[in-house]
């Protein structure tokens, strides 16, 4: 019986046992694999167990992990060499076959999270026992970024679905897990090929309610909680033995327009989209509603991403907004919009939406809010299958660290993909598609960056979002834990953290 196997090593008040660190995750880990989903906190744990050839480092550039060489040797070819002596926790060596199998499994899984970032899947061609090439039909200059998301598992144990168990090559091994309760115990991998983890044991707990995570941290039951809201940060600030890590994030949250509107609809005109944007007081939203926990976006992707460039700023000018609407023949009360979003899409989402209703109301635009609960049918709405909408409150994670794949994922919609409603809210821009093709085909980094910058400007000038912002990532931890270094990807290296003496 599960109850009979209570974690006997926990202290009477539920605190972490000696020499152990407890993490409180807001979502259940469910698996130690990222084929279908990759929420930020999971990255920390998943990569402590399984590793990729590269990882996205603190400066959002690829850092070699299982590869000691990963370089572009021809426009359509990357040469990769596996590090010498790398082994899985069961002692078996990491082989080239594990890479090719992993790519196949990530490609085959239905609803692959990673697939959208790969314009094409590379083919693995072995050169010698440790060296291989990754071949593509067209140049894929960001492959070193993309491969950071492919975690390796022994080929014989990999399947085209999320892996619930099994071995990895990381600094920790899973010694106990209960998917039902979302609790995992990780122990230091004594066969680890690299520098051993400093903390002997890590307990991973699933604590869905933020208030519970905050109380758990205050009482010392939990050592680290991540992705906390400004409200929780306020509650915890000033608490003894609690410290924070804050970094600028890579995620962008948007009030995105519906680009599936027919010609003649006001929102199909960029000038109307711009006018509505002028009615939104972004500074107040960022400073007051979001309590300074976010910065208004200055481009179509977060500026932390490599290759991101500032393209402009959101101005607040309701008088001009009204004039622009009138110039388009839209009088007070003529325009009625529906704003949809899913609860929890971002911290303070409901407050932001309510403030936007007020701001648009000031220029005579009526907005109806439609809030969906998680698990509801917002996806069908987004695709325009369940009902019509005008603005979507949405967040877009950017786990690959570079701007180009994110621009491809969000703005690379084609008419073919739109037939199955697989574009990003119907956004199709032929100029952007041409530029994306050019950027991906460009091997020269400088010229590629120039094109990437141009793509961002073209997207920005098309007014895809009424307003957008980049939230900070905030993590809180007990000061008994040392060297928690939150990275822009909202994750940290578990093996690096230690315990104060």
């Amino acid at each position: 019986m599960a109850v009979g196997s209570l974690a006997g090593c926990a202290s009477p008040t539920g605190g972490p046992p000696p020499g152990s660190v407890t993490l409180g995750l807001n979502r259940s880990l469910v698996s130690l694999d990222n084929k279908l989903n990759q929420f930020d906190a999971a990255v920390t744990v998943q990569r402590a167990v399984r590793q990729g050839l590269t990882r996205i480092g603190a400066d959002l550039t690829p850092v070699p992990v299982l590869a000691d060489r990963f370089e572009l040797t021809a426009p359509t070819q990357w040469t990769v060499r596996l590090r010498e002596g790398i082994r899985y926790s069961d002692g078996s060596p990491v082989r080239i076959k594990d890479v090719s199998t992993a790519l196949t499994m990530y490609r085959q899984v239905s609803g692959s999270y990673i697939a959208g970032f790969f314009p094409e899947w590379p083919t693995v061609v072995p050169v010698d026992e440790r060296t291989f090439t990754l071949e593509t039909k067209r140049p894929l200059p960001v492959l070193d970024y993309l491969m950071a998301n492919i975690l390796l598992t022994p080929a014989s144990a990999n399947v085209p679905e999320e892996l619930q168990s099994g071995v990895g090559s990381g600094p920790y091994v899973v010694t106990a897990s209960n998917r039902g309760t979302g609790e995992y115990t990780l122990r230091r991998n004594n066969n680890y090929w690299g520098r051993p983890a400093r903390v002997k044991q890590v307990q991973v707990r699933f604590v869905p309610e933020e208030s519970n995570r905050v109380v758990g941290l205050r009482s010392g039951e939990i050592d680290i909680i991540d992705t906390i809201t400004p409200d929780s940060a306020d509650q915890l600030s000033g608490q003894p033995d609690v410290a924070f890590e804050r970094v600028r994030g890579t995620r962008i949250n948007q009030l995105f327009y519906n680009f599936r509107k027919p010609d003649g609809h006001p929102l199909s005109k960029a000038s109307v989209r711009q006018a509505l944007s002028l009615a939104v007081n972004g500074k107040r939203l960022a400073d007051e509603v979001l309590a300074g926990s976010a910065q208004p976006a200055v481009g179509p992707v977060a500026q932390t991403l490599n290759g991101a460039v500032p393209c402009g700023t959101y101005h607040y000018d309701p008088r001009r907004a009204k004039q622009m609407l009138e110039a388009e023949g839209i009088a007070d009360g003529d325009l009625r919009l529906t704003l949809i979003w899913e609860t929890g899409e971002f911290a303070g989402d409901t407050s932001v939406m309510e403030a936007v209703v007020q701001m648009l109301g000031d220029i005579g635009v009526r907005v109806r809010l439609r809030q969906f609960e998680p698990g509801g049918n917002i996806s069908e709405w987004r695709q325009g299958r369940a009902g019509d909408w005008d603005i979507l409150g949405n967040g877009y994670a950017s786990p690959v660290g570079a701007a180009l794949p994110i621009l491809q994922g969000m703005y690379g919609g084609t008419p073919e993909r739109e037939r199955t409603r697989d574009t990003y809210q119907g956004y199709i821009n032929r100029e952007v598609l041409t530029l994306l093709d050019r950027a991906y085909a460009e091997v020269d980094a400088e010229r590629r960056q120039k094109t990437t910058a141009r793509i961002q400007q073209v997207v920005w000038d098309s007014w895809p979002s009424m307003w957008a912002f980049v939230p900070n990532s905030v993590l809180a931890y007990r000061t008994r834990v040392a060297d928690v270094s939150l990275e822009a990807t909202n994750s940290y290296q578990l093996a690096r953290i230690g315990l104060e003496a």
Partner: protein
Amino acid sequence: MITYVLKRLGQSAFVVLLTVSTVFVLIRMAPGDPATALAGPNATAADLAKIRTQLGLDGSILSQYLTFLERLFTGDLGTSYSFRAPAFDVVIDRLPYTITLALAAVALTAVIALPLGIWMSRRADTGREMGANIVTIAAQSMPEFWSGIMLLTVFSVLLPVLPSSGFTTWPGLVLPATTIALLQVALISRLVRREMVSNLTSPYLTVARAHGIPERRLVWGYALTNSAIPVLTALGTRFAAMLNGVVVVEVVFNWPGVGSLVVRALETRDYPLIQATVLVTAALAILVQLLIDLMYPLLDPRIRLGKATAR
């Protein structure tokens, strides 16, 4: 007796099937799509269609229901979409946590409510009883989420002596069980008081009292025994209801039981898990009710199960 039990079990099986069938239809009529909840954010329409086919959700509700029934009778409740494990096993994993919490809460309720109810009945309509009444009514009026948060604030945050969430140590049971018991004590103690007052003022006790039987024996031996059936029924009914998951308390204390599981299953539209939870908990609740019924003859020999009670 055996005939009665078999008859009740037959009725129970029908009730469970009806309940599960109703839930089967209702969750499919509700908005939301398991494929969307399951697929990653970048899933294409083709991916979603493939997932629906894999999950067997591409047919009509009737064909899905027939498949469900066919599997049900072979003991297969399907695979949980979110846990990727047999739904029955996932529920069984969580059930001990809920049973433990329910047992602790009922035991705590009985230990406090029975003496309190008797004490109140012995002091009926006095100032002290009125004071106790006010306290129990106040406890009954407090929503569980509020009393839970208050207990948590005091005992986990201000005086960090008890765990605030989860069930990693036995002290972790104290706060959630107390939160549930607070409400139940109020209800049960008032029921005990009412039954005891009714019995203590009944003619048979007046006669017994006239025969010189000691008051202590009248209270504990006669009145309490005759009050036992409604009290046992109330406690049993509440225990059975708790087996369906004490959702609010489980969420407040992050208790890894059936209640928090069902919340998650509903959020992810995990049909097999919802169905398995309903089936297991409904069956258990009915079984508990049956056990309570079987105890009646032990408490009152006049009761003979399956036959009209002798007048």
